[in-house]
């Protein structure tokens, strides 16, 4: 775009004149170019400020207030660090919610994502009916998590649900309370979440595998590497960019986990998650906007970790 000399255009009379800058060099951008550039940078910047920076900064500011959602925020609303203090010392749900998010992340990272990758590797081997399997595993991905929640709620329901009835537990009066028992309900909804996550990872990984140069495999085969070694020593390292994407997706899914737990019981009784604490506190009838914002800020700080890692990797590959 920064062509050195642009022919004059009708809409920019001075276009084409090279204006000397302070350092005595000639600016290669015409006034027209500069206007276009300004627009191209300005509009996204404006959108970014309005939709990302402003809400973020508002949340941070609100987290120091006791604002309850009515009217204007005034100086009398500022309570300093009180919200954070209570969050870490008094609020009994914060640490459980935090650890539930950690469990969620660990489950996705060590169970669901590897299964997705495993399926992708299997389906990459041109099995008969591979398109069919792909569609079956991918089907849950097109469903919204809300619907996934409803579907699994029906499976897990203690007396009416499929699982307890299929295993004869209802009849034997030996009901397992999948969603009500705080010791197991998190894992029950993790199964529901994985049902979708596995398909998601599978598709991403499969498309990556398809783009791996087949000669690499052949070379590995010629060198006498078995399937196992070929995958872990050759294919997996070549897939590094996809691996990063998968890792980031997994982390993001774990941090934004919300829908299923909220559908099941509004995230209480063992299903507390950070995102749900934010919602229940700030946009419920209670409207503890200030306190909810403080939790949101904590979640933001946690999210910055993977974001920074991801960005630094992306920057490194592009430079």
């Amino acid at each position, binding site marked *: 775009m920064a062509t050195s000399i642009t022919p004059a255009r009708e809409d920019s009379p001075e276009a084409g004149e090279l204006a000397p800058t302070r350092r005595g060099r000639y600016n290669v951008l015409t006034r027209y170019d500069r206007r276009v550039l300004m627009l191209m940078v300005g509009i996204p910047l404006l959108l970014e400020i309005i939709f990302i920076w402003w809400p973020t900064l508002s949340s941070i500011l609100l987290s120091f207030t006791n604002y309850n959602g009515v009217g204007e925020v005034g100086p009398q609303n500022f309570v300093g660090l009180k919200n954070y203090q209570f969050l870490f010392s008094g609020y009994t749900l914060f640490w459980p919610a935090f650890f539930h998010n950690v469990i969620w992340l660990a489950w996705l990272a060590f169970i669901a994502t590897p299964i997705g990758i495993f399926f992708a590797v299997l389906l990459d081997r041109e099995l008969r009916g591979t398109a069919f399997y792909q569609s079956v595993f991918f089907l849950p991905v097109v469903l919204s998590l809300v619907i996934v929640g409803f579907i699994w709620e029906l499976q897990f329901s203690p007396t009416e649900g499929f699982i307890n009835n299929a295993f004869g537990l209802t009849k034997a009066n030996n*009901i397992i309370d999948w969603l009500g028992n705080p010791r197991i309900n998190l894992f029950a909804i993790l199964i529901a979440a994985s049902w979708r996550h596995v398909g998601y990872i599978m598709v991403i990984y499969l498309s990556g595998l398809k783009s791996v140069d087949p000669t690499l495999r052949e070379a590995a085969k010629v060198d006498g590497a078995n399937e196992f070694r070929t995958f872990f020593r050759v294919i997996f390292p070549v897939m590094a960019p996809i691996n990063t994407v998968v890792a980031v997706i997994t982390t993001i899914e774990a941090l934004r986990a919300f829908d299923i737990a909220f559908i099941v019981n509004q995230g209480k009784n063992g299903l507390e998650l950070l995102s749900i604490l934010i919602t*229940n506190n700030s946009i419920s009838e209670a409207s503890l906007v200030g306190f909810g914002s403080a939790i949101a800020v904590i979640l933001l700080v946690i999210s910055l970790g993977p974001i920074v890692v991801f960005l630094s990797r992306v920057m490194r590959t592009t430079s």
Partner: protein
Amino acid sequence: MGDSRGPKIAGSSERILIPGTGIELPVDFDLSRRDMLKIAGYGSLAAFIAACGGTTPTTTSGSVTAKGGSMSIGSYLSDTVPKKGLQDVVDAFTKANGDTKVKVNTVDHGTFQNTINNYLQATPEDVFTWFSGHRMRFFAKKGLAQPIDDVWNDVKSNFTEGFAASVKGDDGHVYAVPTSYYPWAIFYRKDVFTAGNYKIPTNWDDFIKLCQQMKKDNLIPMAFADKDGWPAMGTFDILNLRMNGYDFHVGLCGGQQKWTDPKVANVFKKWAELTPYYSPAFAGLTWQEAAQQLRQKKAGMYLLGLFVSEQFVSGGNADDINQLDFFPFPDLGTQYDSEKALDAPIDVYMLAKKSPTLGTDSGQAKAFLEFMSKGSSQLTYWKASPGAIPTANDADPSQYPALTKKAAQIVSSAKRITQFFDRDSRPDFSGPNAMQGFLLRYLSSPKQDTSGLQGQMQSFWDSLTPE
């Protein structure tokens, strides 16, 4: 009606029964009815304008009400049965009030409650459905509700003093018109009690003995469900009322009493005597599922509001509702038994101060409130949705079935009436991550030493901004 008993996701309260399976499927997941109304509304806008052309609003001089014109209602009556009740009343109102156009915006019950704060500050409808008690005063105090003293002056002769007190804000102004109420009591099936030769228990020992007997007879003695989080509050309320008295309970809800009080520990201790007889896996059951256990004779008793009858009406068997009966909570042998206190929540209609159309529709909106305070209108609603009792003095009780008559009677004989925990206490304390969560934690092991839990409850209360 109802407290927080609607499911929590937009539109999910609409359920379809899969034939033969007994499984109810929620439909209408994402698109809220509000969206649907909007979509439908835009489509028929032209027709609507054309239809409006003829009517001009007329204000009767010297009256607070107006005929003709238009008005709007924001409604949480999203379950099929009460929704039809409101529609019947609205149709009658349109006919009676010079063809007033009424737009009803129905929002899923739980969603309506959860978003009430934003709703009332944004562009609410002129009239909205709500609850009395602290929950009404809370929004009146925030300046989001319009006082309706003028309407009340016209209609107050039709209400008892108890109802009059329930719609007054902290500033002494009236903010709502009470339209229906219902008691919480222990519901049972008459045929089950006859078959098992069970006697209505009047004291705690008999009650527990009855539970033991039912367990022997392979019944679930007490149906119980707390997936929704709020039903457990009903049991907490009644135990606290009967063990520690009305004054202590109100003080606890209002923050004058402490959750760490040993009196609260006693409530939890007493409650633990009852929990062994609850439905298995109750923390994963909805109140509707537990009501079905009672209807299907799998459970013997169920402590819930009168709205449990909805599940008996929609159950399919006409005889079910005739078999439904209830008895008051048994005496605990304390000095507070004589108060006969119970939860009897009152549902109300209010005016939203920030409604953009209230300026022009004020007369019509007030006419609707006056219409709703008539016994005849309340009966129209009650006929379609009999889960609650009309409040007006001139509502003719002769057509009530025995169950409704008995429900009206148990409330009028109570010396102290509370609303329900989530209506009597501040909303930021009664939510899913506060009181609902605390009670579920207690119920997960009722025999626990509750002092730690009580400490957490108190410290959560203390963390809230003083009202």
